[in-house]
């Protein structure tokens, strides 16, 4: 019973503590009990005996975890807010491409392309935008995964999480980011009309084929080859009178959709190649990204 003990001191008593433990008290009563518990050892001991030790341990662990956990980085917090699971967010936050410099480069490139199209409004400026936009995710993928790029590449290979899943996860994040930025940039080019979306399918096609190629050569080289082939293709197909390329017409778009599907199929069939380092050059290229 709540009330004073033989020495005259007030104590919560077994009934009240039991009610508190069972969460049967209203807010005011709960706060009074808690205020008393913080100052009275006797009642605290009595209360502790009522609580299931396993639950107590669980609560304690949760509390320590919450208090001790370092604040996650900005990218990671943003991803979690977007609904990405916390462990996936950590995997993505470690993507070298998504750590600032690439984002800045993508935004700057797009800004230049848009600016050029505005100040120089003509078909060739539009063409430049369409040519540059698909290259941006490629640049990101080159620095998203692989030996010499990912500082934990080796540790990752020795870990059970399939490296292919990590690669896809990061490629998807890079592609999504670049696509969003390029889409925003296309909105700034109303004169292009529906043709402003002409970079999207080539972008998917180039990404898929560079990943497929990365099953044979190092990812960096795969991206280089794909980007080179794209630039050559655009240059070879540009035709007067108003400079335009068949690549952005219906035929070209269909072709790139096919390339994207084919690349995805090759990637799927050869995904086992990502599970060991054979054939890849493991010397680090970006010394600044690595700490020894």
């Amino acid at each position, binding site marked *: 019973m709540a009330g004073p003990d033989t020495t005259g001191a007030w104590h919560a008593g077994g009934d009240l503590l039991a009610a508190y433990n069972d969460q049967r008290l209203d807010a005011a009563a709960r706060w009074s009990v808690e205020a008393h518990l913080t100052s009275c050892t006797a009642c605290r001991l009595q209360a502790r005996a009522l609580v299931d030790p396993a639950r107590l341990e669980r609560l304690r*662990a*949760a509390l320590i*975890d919450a208090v*001790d*956990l*370092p604040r*996650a*980085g900005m990218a990671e917090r943003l991803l979690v807010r977007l609904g990405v699971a*916390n*462990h996936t967010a*950590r*995997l993505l936050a*470690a993507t*070298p491409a998504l*750590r600032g410099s690439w984002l800045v480069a993508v935004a700057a490139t797009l800004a230049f392309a848009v600016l050029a199209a505005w100040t120089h409004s003509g078909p060739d400026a539009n063409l430049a935008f369409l040519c540059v936009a698909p290259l941006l995710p490629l640049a990101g993928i080159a620095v998203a995964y692989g030996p010499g790029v*990912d*500082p*934990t*590449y*080796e*540790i*990752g*290979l*020795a*870990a*059970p*999480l*399939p490296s292919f899943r*990590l690669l896809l996860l990061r490629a998807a994040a890079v592609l999504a980011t670049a696509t969003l930025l390029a889409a925003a940039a296309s909105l700034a080019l109303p004169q292009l009309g529906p043709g402003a979306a002409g970079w999207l399918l080539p972008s998917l096609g180039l990404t898929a084929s560079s990943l497929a190629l990365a099953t044979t050569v190092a990812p960096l080289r795969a991206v280089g080859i794909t980007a080179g082939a794209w630039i050559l293709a655009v240059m070879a197909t540009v035709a007067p009178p108003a400079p335009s390329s068949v690549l952005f017409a219906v035929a070209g778009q269909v072709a790139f959709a096919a390339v994207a599907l084919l690349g995805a199929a090759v990637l799927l069939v050869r995904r*086992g190649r990502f*599970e*060991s*380092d*054979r054939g890849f050059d493991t010397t*680090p290229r970006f010394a600044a*990204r*690595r*700490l*020894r």
Partner: protein
Amino acid sequence: MTTPAPTIRVRDLAMTFGRTRALDGVTFDLVPGVTGLLGPNGAGKTTLLRVLATVSAPDGGSVNALGLDPRHTDQRLDLRGRLGYMPQEPGFHARFTAFEFVDYVAILKELHQRRARHEEVRRVLELVGLGAVRGKQIKALSGGMRRRVALAQALLGEPDLLVLDEPTAGLDPEQRLRFRELVSRLGEGRTVLLSTHQTEDVVALARHVMVLHLGGLRFAGTPLELAGLARGHVWQSQERDPGALAAWRTGTGQHRNIGDPPAGADLLEATLEDGYLLLLGGDHVEEPAA
């Protein structure tokens, strides 16, 4: 004392990079406990450790680790779940804190249950003595601390097999002492293979030692047996003995010679380092003649 059953069986392992035979038919068994891997630079130590850590697939031969064959995808993934690997030059995501980095590797190790994972990350960081700096960014940590972060990630999930590539490089003597204590404790009931250039490391903590040279296994046995190779082959003299395979001037002003001693030489007690040098030195001398 009965010999424990081997946990790792390596047979005829071969690995070629271009024209270089990095591993040339290496065969050995490992038992639980710490095994030290010695060898000069370019001997193939890192290649061997990478194969055992399933990072590289060998060109030839077979590995059976913890009863699993890494050639099969499902067994390789099982093995990866039970092994800890510390690469020779571990890279870090510089902006991560020590905690975030180890947590990141824990995710790669598929410890998805968040709270249990965080507890495990704290445990391994405490184990290597970095509990207090876990919130610090890795780029703010000293070289020795970074190596301990790299070691911590290898310890995640209490692996049955630990593969450590030169874990003591760059550690100061006190850190090295702490490291030896930790690894010898980890070696109880686990299979630990570590490569090192420090023969003292092997003497201090390894129950077994292997010497790799030019892609071939030159010795496998106990540290005592390796030292025993040099018994009767180490002597001191006033001047450097021209007949010695290796000789150096010691602090006392005397020269320590290794090789075939002349008659009446002042023989010294052989150390593991003497045995190691004799093993390699003999090779260097014989090769041009062959």
